[in-house]
């Protein structure tokens, strides 16, 4: 075994990282092609509010002090996701407004909860920027459960998610019940965001969802290939980023995101040199 992995906390971080490196890009593909890349940002900020709420409640109640704040974060995140879908219906012609509304509500709540809990502590700092030493064994199992749910959902709903991402009208004509699928998708996205934050941190979760996709859609042939490449780029960045984080003693979120940025630039350069071809004309 790698010397790196002899400590339990590093095993935890590594296992969680590998799962998150798969989950975030898989959902990210659907989010990006639906032009909702910013949703991940909105949801991560509402997740922060949940975590801050748990830290605050922990001051008063031993139940919350003992609870893993990730669960409260998930509850807030899923609530925020459902609220976004509702807001999108209220503002039919300004769908993107839902995102800043939820995002600012999330930040506002977080700031209030944090100040009520007498300011920042290390715990909170870890949630903001990600830390590989803060991952507990219970986090690994939580993320594993989410992994199973997400993979089953995407595997069995692939057709539906694909059509709805490309062309909602066609989806409706195929008799697809778009509403509940989209709400379920948002709820699952919220879970993955909450699951990813220990590793990459709340401020950088959306990067892990969108940057691998931004790189893959430059070069992928087809949707399935876009998914595979996104996962590949996500995994490379998470693994390389965690190594760098450990050996150079840097915040893991930052090293992972910088690896993603490097990959993104490489794909852009690759595309530039191989050139984009328009195929024939009729």
């Amino acid at each position, binding site marked *: 075994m790698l010397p790196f992995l002899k400590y339990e906390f590093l095993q935890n971080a590594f296992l969680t990282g590998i799962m998150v490196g798969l989950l975030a890009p898989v959902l990210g593909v659907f989010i990006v092609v639906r032009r909702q890349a910013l949703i991940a940002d909105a949801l991560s900020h509402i997740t922060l509010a949940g975590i801050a709420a748990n830290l605050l409640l922990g001051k008063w109640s031993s139940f919350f002090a003992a609870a893993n704040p990730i669960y409260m974060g998930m509850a807030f995140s899923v609530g925020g996701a459902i609220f976004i879908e509702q807001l999108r219906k209220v503002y039919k012609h300004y769908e993107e407004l839902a995102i800043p509304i939820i995002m600012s509500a999330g930040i506002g709540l977080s700031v209030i909860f944090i100040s009520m809990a007498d300011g920042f502590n290390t715990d909170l700092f870890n949630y903001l920027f990600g830390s590989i030493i803060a991952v507990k064994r219970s986090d690994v199992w939580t993320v594993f459960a989410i992994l199973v749910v997400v993979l089953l959902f995407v595997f069995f709903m692939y057709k539906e998610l694909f*059509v709805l991402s*490309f062309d909602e009208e066609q989806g409706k*004509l*195929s008799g697809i019940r778009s509403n509940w699928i989209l709400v379920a998708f948002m709820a699952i996205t919220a879970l993955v965001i909450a699951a990813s934050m220990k590793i990459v941190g709340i401020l950088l979760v959306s990067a892990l969802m969108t940057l691998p996709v931004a790189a893959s859609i430059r070069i992928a042939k*087809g949707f399935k290939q876009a998914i595979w490449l996104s996962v590949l780029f996500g995994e490379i960045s998470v693994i390389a980023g965690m190594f760098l984080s450990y050996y150079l003693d840097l915040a893991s979120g930052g090293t992972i995101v910088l690896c993603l940025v490097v990959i993104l630039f490489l794909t852009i350069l690759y595309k530039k040199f191989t050139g984009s071809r*328009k*195929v*024939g004309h*009729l």
Partner: protein
Amino acid sequence: MNNNIGSIAIRVDDLSFHYGDKNVLQHVTMEIKKGSFLGLVGPNGSGKSTLIKCILGLQKPQEGHVFLFGEKVNKFNDWDKVGYVSQKANSFNTAFPATAFEVVSMGLFGKVGLFRFLKASDKNKVWEALRSVKMDQYAHQNIGELSGGQQQRIFIARALVSDPELLILDEPTVGVDTESSDSFYKMLKELHRENNMTLVLVTHDVGVMTNYVTDVACLNKQIHFHGNTKEFEESSSENMSAFYGHHVHVLHHDHGHE
């Protein structure tokens, strides 16, 4: 009317639609026979696309009813009998990472059903549909890399892949160059002749269309004319000028067909 109910593909019954206080469609009543190739024409803003969306159940009219194959549209379930190429097909996200093959296979998803996957026989159907629009050699190209005319063929293939009995096309040649749109119309005519399919073609391109369709309907909030192409041509100048509000010549193009 009831004695020939089995021969009617679409029946629109006293349909009215408005957005807020703006009337889009007023008391539209029409029947489209099975096996006909109808050109639905009208100026911009005449409600053509809205009528199509009401027919497909994508919009709910405030008054009136639509029947597809004798079934009320909100109860209609055989959506794989219906193929639709929307106007939006011209303005989809061209950077979407999907191959032509993947786009066409979407047309089968309703038939395949929830929690199921495409079988080998389904994939053969996708190939068949791609061949029928002569796009099989581009199957593994991303849709965004194809030209406008080629993309349009892919969307037709998507509509055809479930073997529909009725194919509805909303302004399919907008943004496609003349040469491509001519070969496109020819392809539609072949599809109509060979498969005995009912076609509804929405267009403002009155001149070219009359060379291909069997029936014409003119819509401008109301139906102003609905008959076969011959009747339309005989009455066309007065119809058209009343209809568009100025004098219009229907141009006859000959593209080498008898």
